[in-house]
């Protein structure tokens, strides 16, 4: 049973395919917002197959083992995180008190792996990209976590499954905690390095950031890791703020609704410089998330 959970559902193969599907949806939506046609349905899969079939070049001056293993660690941790979230509306495969924290940190491992991968090479674009990736990690991580903490405070548990069940029975938390929802949504965009938070991989400045030296397999795995993270992030935000996920239909509708908003936000803004990103998060994001927490605490004590 646990092998099925790991390799087929909700981790493993299923999640990889859903990840590719959501990548396609994201690209297609952004393309339509920008009045382009966008990729075909099989484009992400075709890209992945092509990359996997290509030669992987290991540049001079890198630690070979790290270079190969870092993408795998990133993808593996993202896939592991899927075990604790209500994927497709089913109850999480595994659950224990505190799995929320574990999930959030498993999701961060991908970013960490990316940063280390960039710092591992001698390429200057990679080094600048790695610095930016890690800087960005430090800026959105705290507000994002605080935003996920709000619902968990209301429910009084650290267990994603229980928060999901509570959200399904009560008033949608987006109504009572709108600030938390916005911070979580924008935090997710920062986590995934989507525009306008794509300074770590700004192609007009530093080519592809930390991933510049990656080609073939390593690059494909990093991209898959990001796709998986997109799905898990959407699931988390939908489960917490949009009234929980109790069946596949709800999962599809709610995650798609968030994706629609996210694609809109992606096409609405110019890229933020890394100093602007950090400023935005610490001056505004963290503050808003803290205010939200304070309100929750005050209300909880008063009741």
């Amino acid at each position: 049973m646990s092998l099925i959970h790991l390799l087929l559902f909700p981790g493993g193969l299923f999640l990889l395919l859903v990840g590719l599907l959501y990548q396609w949806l994201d690209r297609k939506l952004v393309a339509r917002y920008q009045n382009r046609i966008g990729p075909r349905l099989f484009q992400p899969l075709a890209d992945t197959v092509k990359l996997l079939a290509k030669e992987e070049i290991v540049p001079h001056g890198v630690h070979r083992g790290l270079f190969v293993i870092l993408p795998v660690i990133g993808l593996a941790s993202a896939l592991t995180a899927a075990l604790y979230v209500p994927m497709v509306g089913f109850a999480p495969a595994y659950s224990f008190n505190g799995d929320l924290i574990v999930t959030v940190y498993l999701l961060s491992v991908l970013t960490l792996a990316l940063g280390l991968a960039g710092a591992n090479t001698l390429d200057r674009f990679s080094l600048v990209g790695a610095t930016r990736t890690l800087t960005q990690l430090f800026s959105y991580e705290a507000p994002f976590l605080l935003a996920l903490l709000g619902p968990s405070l209301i429910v009084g548990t650290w267990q994603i499954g229980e928060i999901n069940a509570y959200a399904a029975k009560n008033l949608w938390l987006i109504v009572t905690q709108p600030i938390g929802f916005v911070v979580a949504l924008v935090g997710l965009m920062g986590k995934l390095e989507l525009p306008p938070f794509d300074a770590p991989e700004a192609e007009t400045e530093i080519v592809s950031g930390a991933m510049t030296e990656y080609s073939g397999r390593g690059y494909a795995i990093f991209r898959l890791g990001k796709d998986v993270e997109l799905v898990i992030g959407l699931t988390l935000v939908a489960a917490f703020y949009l009234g929980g996920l109790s069946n596949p239909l709800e999962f599809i509708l709610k995650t798609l609704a968030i994706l629609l908003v996210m694609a809109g936000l992606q096409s609405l803004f110019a890229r933020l410089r890394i100093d602007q990103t950090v400023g935005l998060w610490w001056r505004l994001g963290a503050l808003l998330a803290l205010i939200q927490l304070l309100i929750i605490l005050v209300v909880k004590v008063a009741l």
Partner: protein
Amino acid sequence: MESEIKTDNRFVVPIGPQHPALKEPGHFEFDVDGEVVTGASIRLGFVHRGIEKLAEQRNYIQDLYLFERICGICSHIHATAFAVAVEKLAGVVVPPRAQAIRTIVAELERIHSHMLWLGVAAHEGGFDTLFMYSWRDRETVMDLLETIAGNRVNYSANLIGGVKFDIDDSQRDAILRGIDFLDQRARYYLKVVESDETFLGRTRGVGKMTRGEAEILGAVGPTARASGVARDVRLEAPYIGYADYPVVLVLDDRGDLEARFSVRILELFESFRLIREILSRMPKGELSTRVPRRIPEGEIVLRVEAPRGELYYYVKSNGSEMPERVKVRTPSLCNWASVASLAVGHKLADMPMLLAGIDPCFSCNDRLVTLRRQDTAQTMTWEDLRQYGIQYYRGKRVCP
């Protein structure tokens, strides 16, 4: 790469010759301290094509086509500059209708160039939506050019002594309709670049160049006008139709990237107005006049206002069918100095937008050949270069 990182404390970020931000090859080295740029150097010349030399081996009519291919974006203005220079040398008077048509095509070209630039500059700042929208709308003006000239890029409107095609009533109506649409779109873009918060965060106060600096650095065109330098060849030395249909100068004192955006967009409105005015009172008459094949001996300097700024042509005739010497200086060359001096102190993330801010055109301005090995720089004459090339390929065993 290794040695540069480890031996000294400079951390150099190279941009180019191949880089996603550059659509043409150029090499820029930015010394960075964290994200802040502490030094910048520019190396050009990757796409030197020897056009000036080629021109000496072709007759004037062939040269017209050659010069039209100096730049893919401002092709018409190059041909116009050369044609006007040769006409002046030959002492012929071009019919006013031909001059009006040249002016219309020149202004349509300015519209297409500025809209292309708007998209590229937005893309450099990571604002891809504006990029896609402006390039979509740019298709309108490309279609108009195709309608009147049959070509989207090298319109080939000029003859020496006139133009090749007329603009009839249905084409006039098409142009007016297209311009009305673009007018409305340009208003929208002006609103976006002047009010979008994230975009202003990338442009306002970035790359600020005062009027004095712009004058010292020899900036031309919209880049200079965005710093408040009142410099426009269309007004200073009117050519083709600009004496009959004067333009109104667009000036901005702010000098930053935001000003460069708004100056270029406001120039679009000026072009719309000018085209409408010319079309409303087009002179009647012939389209071309006869010009002798042999151009009388003499030399001439001609300046025109390309979309990017002052374009300079020097033509020397020795009385034969071919020019003795043609010298071209494109506006991008004048604006590079401003980039190199403005870069210091800005963030690395601002570099692509700063570069794009002058609307650089690499292959037009590449000219001098310098070879840089270690720390030696040398300038080679044509003959030296030829010998060097022969020796080089002999060593490579590719030359028979």
